[in-house]
């Protein structure tokens, strides 16, 4: 469930005894902590216009209900990127009783950067020092007591993916929350010149007794202004009395820039990193690390081009095979079972109770809609989600992104889009939900459009059944070639035409880690739930609507309306237009529907054995091509709408219809003009 973030967060923290904000860098095991602590009920909240989500869930300790706000994983709190902004805003809005920060013991220096930011903001803090076992293997020994003393906050050792230390973490967090004990760090100060400037500004703020937007310590505000934080400068600008302070901050910033030859923001970031490094020097001793573990060694193979590219091709082929063949067979099996046993029984029961009339006949189409959801949902969506979560959790997704980035870049995407696009050849639905790994809306729209243009296994079945079977493999291949060319052209064009630029890739790379099964299971479940709640109602609703149009005969009027396009422009029989409309529900039905409708419209039973009765080879070619390009199926539309919004989803649909009609017509004209076929 998606809620408006600000009110959702404050409501959430009011409904619990204590609220813990869970913070940390990406890939430090934060999601393992969150998933181990919480049960199945997770709410997500979105800030308007932002793609990064905040998760909320509760856990019990004794008889206390403890709310956990899972902030997005970020390297810092700030206003420079969406994830950093959302993380900070969620802390400010949620006003947690305590912040628990998960810190990666193998890279303490970088992780301490955000710890220092939290200390500056004055939040009560607990640190979960994670993967201490790995750090030890690498030869790093961290003095926990000394670290705790320096930072003035409790430090709890954890191994999150085995659930170790998490109880202690919650106990320590609740204790801090109860006592509202502020951190008492030991000499955490920056260089003397910077400190004196911070102090000048702090005093200026304190002296004026100004209202501040979030009740932050004066020093924190001074630092934010010195760091040229766009958000806070904007917020305070409109508040009474801040103008002189802002002017003073601007003056101090240029003073820093002049003295240090770098911008005030860079200087303060450098000071913070230097301080983090000093603390690490104080608390960590290092000896020669042990030899590389399996994770690191195999990981290196996957990033070195010479070995990585073959591995990538193998993995992508495996995904393709799993989705295309295994998924398809499983779907057929389920479909047959449904058609043989469940559907007739359900329909008979329904008619027995409510009688057989237009309304009930339309309603029973819902049973077919449910079948569509089932045969897409389990074999394709679930299988892909498990694969995706596994690749994310082990870190292989990053290797894929690294190797494919330059190719994807040509389409305005980056490497993380490669896996969903390949998965699209199995089924577009999970592929589109997979685009969540992309960070900007621009990338998601481009990726969504391109995935929709990848013929899924259902559409491939039509290409095989209509073209390869009747006209041979060469024309079938030609359809793929045409789609391939279209795909590249559309990708290049979107990259040119869409406003904005593709973002440069900056992605942390880390050696493979042992996946955490619970995290994979829960990730898969959340995504699957999103599919169920969004796609199933639309599939069922769409089926009933289509059923109604069919039973009342309005569908045939619609066919007449479309005749100029279908027959006049694309040279297909009118029945093809009907089949195309009905196939929106499920593309693999495009052939069966064609046969059924042709019989209804009087073509005779012979159609069953030979489609040539109603269409020649060139018509079958055009029919399959149009089927492959026009509107993705109802389930795809549903998830597109969920991921990109209805407006964007409808634009993509309209675009594919225009493209399909255009291509179908052009090829028809070409056939007519040249006399091919």
């Amino acid at each position, binding site marked *: 469930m998606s809620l408006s973030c600000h009110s959702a967060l404050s409501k959430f923290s009011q409904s619990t005894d204590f609220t813990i904000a869970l913070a940390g860098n990406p890939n430090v095991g934060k999601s393992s902590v969150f998933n181990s602590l919480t049960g199945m009920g997770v709410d997500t909240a979105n800030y308007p216009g932002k793609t990064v989500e905040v998760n909320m869930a509760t856990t019990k300790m004794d008889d206390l209900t403890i709310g956990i706000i899972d902030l997005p994983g970020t*390297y*810092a709190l*700030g206003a*420079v*990127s969406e994830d*950093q902004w959302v993380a900070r805003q969620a802390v400010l809005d949620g006003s947690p009783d305590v912040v628990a920060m998960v810190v990666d013991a193998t*890279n303490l*220096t*970088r992780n301490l*950067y955000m710890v220092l930011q939290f200390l500056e903001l004055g939040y009560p803090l607990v640190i979960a020092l994670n993967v201490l076992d790995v750090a030890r293997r690498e030869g790093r020994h961290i003095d926990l007591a000394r670290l705790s003393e320096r930072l003035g906050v409790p430090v709890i050792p954890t191994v999150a993916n085995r659930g170790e230390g998490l109880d202690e973490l919650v106990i320590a967090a609740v204790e801090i929350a109860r006592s509202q004990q502020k951190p008492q760090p030991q000499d955490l100060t920056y260089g003397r010149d910077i400190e004196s400037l911070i102090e000048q500004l702090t005093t200026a703020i304190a002296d004026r007794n100004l209202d501040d937007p979030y009740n932050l310590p004066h020093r924190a505000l001074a630092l934010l202004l010195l760091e040229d934080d766009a958000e806070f400068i904007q917020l305070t600008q409109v508040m009474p009395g801040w103008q002189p302070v802002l002017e003073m901050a601007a003056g101090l910033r240029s003073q820093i820039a002049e003295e240090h030859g*770098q*911008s005030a*923001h*860079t200087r303060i*970031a*450098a000071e913070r*990193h230097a301080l983090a490094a000093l603390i690490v020097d104080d608390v960590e001793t290092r000896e020669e690390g042990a030899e590389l573990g399996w994770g690191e060694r195999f990981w290196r193979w996957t*990033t*070195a*081009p010479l070995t990585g*590219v073959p591995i990538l091709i193998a993995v992508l082929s495996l995904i393709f095979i799993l989705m295309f063949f295994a998924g398809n067979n499983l779907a057929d099996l389920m479909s047959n079972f449904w058609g043989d046993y469940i559907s007739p029984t359900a329909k008979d029961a329904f008619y027995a109770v409510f009688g057989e009339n237009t309304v009930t006949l339309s309603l029973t189409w819902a049973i077919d809609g449910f079948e569509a959801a089932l045969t897409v949902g389990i074999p394709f969506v679930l299988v892909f989600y498990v694969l995706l979560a596994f690749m994310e959790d082990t870190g292989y997704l*990053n290797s894929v*992104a*690294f*190797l*494919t*980035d*330059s*190719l994807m*870049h040509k389409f305005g995407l*980056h*490497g993380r889009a490669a896996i969903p696009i390949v998965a699209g050849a199995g089924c577009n639905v999970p592929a589109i939900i997979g685009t969540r790994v992309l960070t900007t809306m621009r990338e998601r729209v481009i990726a969504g459009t391109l995935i929709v243009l990848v013929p899924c296994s259902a559409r491939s079945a039509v290409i095989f059944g209509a073209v390869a079977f009747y006209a041979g493999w060469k024309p079938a291949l030609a359809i793929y070639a045409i789609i391939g060319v279209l795909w590249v052209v559309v990708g290049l064009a979107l990259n040119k035409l869409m406003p904005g630029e593709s973002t*440069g*890739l*900056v*992605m*942390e*790379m*880390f050696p493979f880690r042992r996946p955490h099964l619970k995290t994979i299971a829960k990730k898969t479940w959340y995504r699957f739930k999103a599919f169920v709640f969004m796609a199933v109602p639309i599939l069922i609703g769409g089926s009933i609507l289509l059923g109604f149009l069919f039973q009342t005969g309005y569908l045939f009027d619609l066919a007449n309306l479309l005749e100029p396009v279908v027959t006049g422009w694309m040279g297909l029989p009118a029945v093809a237009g009907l089949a195309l409309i009905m196939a929106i529900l499920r593309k693999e039905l495009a052939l069966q529907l064609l046969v059924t409708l042709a019989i209804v419209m009087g073509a005779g039973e012979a159609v069953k054995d030979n489609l040539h009765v109603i269409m020649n080879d060139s018509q079958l070619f055009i029919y399959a091509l149009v089927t492959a390009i026009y509107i993705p199926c109802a389930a795809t539309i549903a998830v597109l709408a969920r991921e990109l919004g209805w407006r964007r989803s409808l634009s993509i649909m309209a675009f594919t219809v225009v493209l399909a009609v255009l291509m179908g017509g052009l090829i028809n004209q070409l056939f007519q003009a040249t006399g091919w076929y």
Partner: protein
Amino acid sequence: MITQAVEEYLEAIYKMSLEDDRVIAARLAERMNVSPPTVADMLKRLAENGLASSSRTEGVKLTKKGLEAAETLVRRHRLWERFLTDVLGLNWDEVHEEACRLEHAMSPQVEERLAEILGHPDSCPHGHPIPGTRGARRREKEARPLSKLCVGEEGVIERVAEEEPKLLQYLASLGLLPNAPIRIKEIAPFKGPMLVQVAGAQYALGQEVASKIMVRSK
């Protein structure tokens, strides 16, 4: 007589002296992938030929004659690289090895003609200055874009282009800051991203991001 082996040592010492004020024999052994006694033998030979001196306090130092010989080699190497990319159309990331082989078999006359044909370029395809051209020694110590570095090269971040403040600030929060040492571990095919090691972590940086990070030799 300067053999190919001697030339390679001279080149290595030259490059190491740019990265570090004091060149240590043990590091030289690591770089050449040989044992310390082998390096000791070679250093003795270099000293006998008046090409280099070594002492405990000063480390390994090239003499004037040694420096000239090294610069000639580096000049030839980089001229070949230019030739291979500009004339033969090879990719800049595949010319280094070729140039390593070609640089040793070359007379001053050929070197002169090569420079002429190429229009006396002042830097190699990777952006390194060609010795013997204006300000080459000064430029050798200057910053160049991270995207021009090759796999295995190391440097120190000099600055990040300021025209994109958000990128600058984002990189700063990761520790990609001036004076941070940085090493290229891998480059993805087709001008893909670079895998760099910086501040205890590894990042994949797209080429356009890498081109905004200026790096100088260590």
